[in-house]
């Protein structure tokens, strides 16, 4: 048995949930072009907007955290897409020019 990194997002999600907090897990599903975090990377968010981990280099985390609040409220997962081709890219796009899909789900 070895300890996980104290900042390990999935370990933190388990601790938060065990403490009774509502938690959403965001996961990078695909990346096209230049993207800072590989598919499978996690960002975890609680109902107060606390978060650990990352799905980009800090470019879209704010938007994912906001969407996560809705997912926590409704329990319905969401697929988010960010990139230069996306209209929202002008607000929260990836400056590196890539595109990513992020799946956000509530931890049941």
């Amino acid at each position, binding site marked *: 048995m*070895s300890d996980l990194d104290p900042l390990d997002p999935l370990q933190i999600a388990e601790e938060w949930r065990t403490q009774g907090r509502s938690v959403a897990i965001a996961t990078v599903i*695909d990346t096209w072009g230049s993207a800072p975090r590989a598919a499978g990377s996690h960002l975890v968010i609680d109902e107060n907007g606390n978060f650990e981990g990352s799905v980009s280099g800090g470019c879209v985390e704010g938007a994912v955290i906001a969407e996560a609040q809705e997912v926590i409220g409704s329990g319905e997962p969401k697929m988010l897409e960010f990139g230069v081709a996306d209209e929202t890219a002008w607000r929260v796009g990836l400056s590196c020019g890539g595109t990513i899909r992020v799946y956000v789900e509530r931890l049941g």
Partner: protein
Amino acid sequence: MDIGSLRTLNAARKNRQAAVLVTDMDAGGSRVILEGEVVAGSLGDHVAAAFRSGKAAAVDVAGRNLFLNVYLPPPRIVVIGAVHISQALARLAPIAGYDLAIIDPRTAFATPERFADVELTADWPEDVLTARPLDAYSALVAVTHDPKIDDFPIADALHKGCFYVGALGSRKTHAKRVARLQEQGLSDAAIARIAAPIGLDIGAATPQEIAVAILAQIVQAYRRRDIVTTE
């Protein structure tokens, strides 16, 4: 994902067991599959491919939109020698996400005072590595340059297929080491896998800088290794 699946997944990761998490992105369910479990059908093929490549991917299985996330054990650095370089390496490794353990039978070196919060065993590598064997996710760093201590773990690491084997010592020391390993019957190809002189050539001069050079070389070996296959 439900909390039960997350607990199973986190427990496997703590136990250095490779795991794949399958998420149904339409229906929302998830399932943890541990390495070695039998999974039928085309999902089984996708899961096997995920374990081999270590890469997460979205796949279509019988019209279902699935995401397979892969969690391989973090690479583990086993250091032979509780020396000054090891003290620096022990602090750097966790930052890069690598587990680290130190083995040195010399009790004057292997003291808890010198290695606070580090997994440290003051015993012979022969005994420690029997209890906790090296594997393909292990990197072996031999830094005592004492043949009595270093030679066994170096040979053992080559036999076990460690993704990195590095040994400290001058070219002269290493030439003698190569001769001893050849006498033990190790092939030239196996011996050529030993990184010596140890560390990327960045002109490192201090023990701390040498630790950076070693860690960088370990990262390079891990990221450029052949795709891990399970036996």
